């Protein structure tokens, strides 16, 4: 089997952010379901959280291409 181990590394680096983004949106949906009028307030917070959590996965894909050789 041939290939590049960097891609495997990207797969690993995507696990954490995947779980994190899931948790964030679960909490966001929960919040909106409990209190629909709070949607406007929760939305930027949810997307901020997503953006920050996502950073690791983005580093992962950037580094996967950097170390491709």
């Amino acid at each position, binding site marked *: 089997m041939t290939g590049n181990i960097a891609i495997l590394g990207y797969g690993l680096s995507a696990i954490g952010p995947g779980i994190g983004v899931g948790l964030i949106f679960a909490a966001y949906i929960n919040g909106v379901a409990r209190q629909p009028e709070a949607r*406007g307030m929760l939305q*930027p917070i949810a997307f*901020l959280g*997503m*953006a920050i959590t996502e*950073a690791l996965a*983005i*580093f992962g*894909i950037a580094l996967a*291409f950097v170390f491709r050789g």
Partner: protein
Amino acid sequence: MSLNVLGSLATADGGGFQAPTAGEFYQPLLFDGPFAITRPAVVLLLSVGLIAWWLIASTKEAAIVPGKRQWVTEGAYGFVRNGIARDIIGSKDFLRFVPLLFSMFMLILVNNLFGVIPPIQYPTMSRVGIPVALTLVVYVTYHYIGIKRVGLRAYFKNLVPPGLPGWIKPSIFVLEVITFFVTRPLTLALRLFGNMFAGHILIVLFITGGWYMLTSGGILLPAAGAVTWIFGFVMTLFELLVEFLQAYVFTLLTALYIAGAVADEH
């Protein structure tokens, strides 16, 4: 890209499917080397021209009851002004940052949307230099505001939140300096770049892979190729969502960093 290009791409180097690489994104149109006029440069110029034309044309005859075009422009402006700037920076001094945020939002949004609009189909932000340039503007802006407001010494002193025990302060200070000067700009630029780059390469992979399977003969493989191609279209729709989201997130984070610099407390 025309289908001929796709076909030759898929079957380059004799047999076997060539997965798209990062080299896909370097497309010089005129000249070569560091001063080449590349496809993203042309797309970027086009987007700037288009935004300028649209904003001027749609607000030239601004009426109290807006027409269709004015309504679109006002919607986008209101979204950035009220939904991002005022909510994040606060109603006291958000107004002077609205031009910056609105320009950022429009530029990124239009350039991202160019990634899926058929004749252009090149997300400019997938060349890392362009997000880096945008991030540099944000980086200089929030540091400049912060330092101008309280002075250089106090700016660094304010990095550490008040009320911490003395022994923990040095390590927090180091962490905060890394956050402010390295992590923030790095993630801001890489997030936009990474999303556009990965999304575009994914679409190219689905389309070229689907084309390769469609044209490779047999029955099962073309069937799988058709499914792959349909999935390529689905991914294009998903990309549309991501493109809008990234423009939003970039503007949101810019507003957040500026808010941190203009806020009185840490």
